[in-house]
């Protein structure tokens, strides 16, 4: 809702009052930021020695590689999640009751279990014979595949349901089979609607790659864990690594918005709720 609708165009008195509010707010915010910066400065957190690693070539290279690891983990996970989501999303739309039930169970289970727990489990019980770095890497990919896959299953279902009913009816009317209606008519249109939601799921996956720290650091989280061991610079490291996550995510969000405009127009992005779907919807 546009703000202009909520209140009148301010008169001279209100304008003056708002100006005072604005000044107070600006001063308060500046004081807050300045205080934090000053305290960090006093604590010696801006000393060059603590920041020097970030301009040291071999460490920059290590951070770059770690960033690539993080990115590939997220990309692989989302690709895997697409397959997982497609299978179970369509499974939930199946005409066969057992298929619908199993799909519902799988999706609800992986949506409810914390990703960090999936990671602990896959690290110790599934990838425990790999080298730890590889084990951690694939634990992240697998855990994020099933979690984001469960979310995307809902996106798929919602996407297919968002295709106007007439489309499927018309397809049946010209004699298409069920699988044809799904593959030729519904999915191609649904995918278009889903692309932005899929990209924004990348943001979620990228952030969640960090959770593997509970068993072992891999990707950017590895830097977060190990760099302060050498340089005693946990605050600068946290700032830099968080910054890298934020920048990457903002780039992804920008892509999602572009994709939204291109494929769907100005309509709202497809949202999927975390609220569990009631059993009654399945039966």
């Amino acid at each position: 809702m546009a703000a202009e609708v909520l209140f009148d165009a301010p008169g001279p008195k209100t304008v003056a009052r708002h100006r005072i509010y604005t000044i107070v707010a600006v001063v308060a915010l500046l004081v807050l930021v300045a205080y934090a910066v000053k305290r960090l400065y006093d604590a010696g957190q801006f000393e060059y020695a603590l920041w020097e690693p970030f301009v040291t070539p071999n460490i920059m290279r290590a951070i770059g590689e770690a960033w690539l690891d993080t990115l590939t983990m997220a990309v692989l996970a989302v690709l895997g999640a697409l397959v997982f989501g497609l299978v179970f999303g369509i499974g939930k739309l199946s005409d066969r009751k057992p298929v619908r039930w199993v799909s519902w169970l799988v999706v609800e289970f992986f949506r409810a279990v914390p990703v960090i727990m999936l990671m602990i489990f896959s690290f110790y019980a599934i990838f425990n014979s790999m080298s730890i770095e590889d084990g951690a890497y694939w634990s992240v990919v697998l855990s994020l595949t099933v979690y984001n896959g469960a979310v995307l299953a809902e996106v798929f279902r919602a996407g297919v349901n968002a295709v106007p009913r007439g489309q499927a009816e018309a397809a049946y009317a010209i004699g298409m089979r069920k699988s044809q209606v799904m593959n030729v008519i519904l999915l191609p249109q649904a995918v278009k609607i889903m692309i932005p939601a899929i990209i924004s799921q990348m943001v979620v996956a990228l952030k969640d790659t960090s959770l593997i720290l509970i068993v072992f650091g891999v990707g950017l989280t590895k830097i977060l864990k190990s760099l302060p061991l050498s340089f005693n610079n946990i605050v600068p490291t946290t700032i830099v690594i968080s910054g890298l996550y934020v920048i990457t995510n903002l780039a992804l969000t920008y892509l999602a918005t572009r994709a939204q405009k291109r494929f769907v127009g100005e309509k709202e992005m497809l949202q999927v709720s975390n609220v569990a779907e009631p059993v009654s919807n399945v039966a």
Partner: protein
Amino acid sequence: MDAVLESLPDVFKAFGYTVLLFLVSGVFSLIGGTILVAMRVGPISVLDKAAATYVTLVRNTPLLAVFFFFSFAAPKIGINFKWVDVHIGTFDFTSFFSTAVVSLTLYTSTFVCEALRSGVNAVPLGQAEAARAIGLPFTGVMSQVVLPQAFRASVPPVASALIALLKNTSVAAVFGVIEATAQMKVMTNNNADERWGIFIAFAIGYVVLVELVSLVAGTFERRWRIA
């Protein structure tokens, strides 16, 4: 499953911490999200921009990094929670619990803010226009017409944010709170031959909690739905 059954009290206590983290951070997140959304829809553009920047920044930062800031950076500028030292029964609420609550709150507030904003956006424009037309001031428009409807519309997205919070309490495991996930990790380490059973037992615990929150959210949604 033997390992789980043998240490059932520990498991329940761990889930107790999970629930407590969820409840305390949940209440604070609702308050924080409301403040943020007030800044966003209010008339002071500086506050709008500050809130928008904050929301964008935090939403794109991993929760783990937010925890890092409050565990390691905040104490360096004098923000620590050493003064929190409450013990109720066998539950300890010390700086670790507080740090987790603050991190979870600051993170979840941004999602609650966005959820509430989507609620405000869901109120048809004509409602506010009509309210204005009958001469209500800004506060009247908001409190009598827009917010009550926005509140109803935002129940599902807010519930969604709260369920995410419930699962996110597991990040506290990395920062010294022995909640369910930390307990699961300890048990996974100590009982190599029962990893599947332990995982499934704890997973069921989380599924039950999520279903409970969903159930409550569903009830509210039905009760407040505009006929």
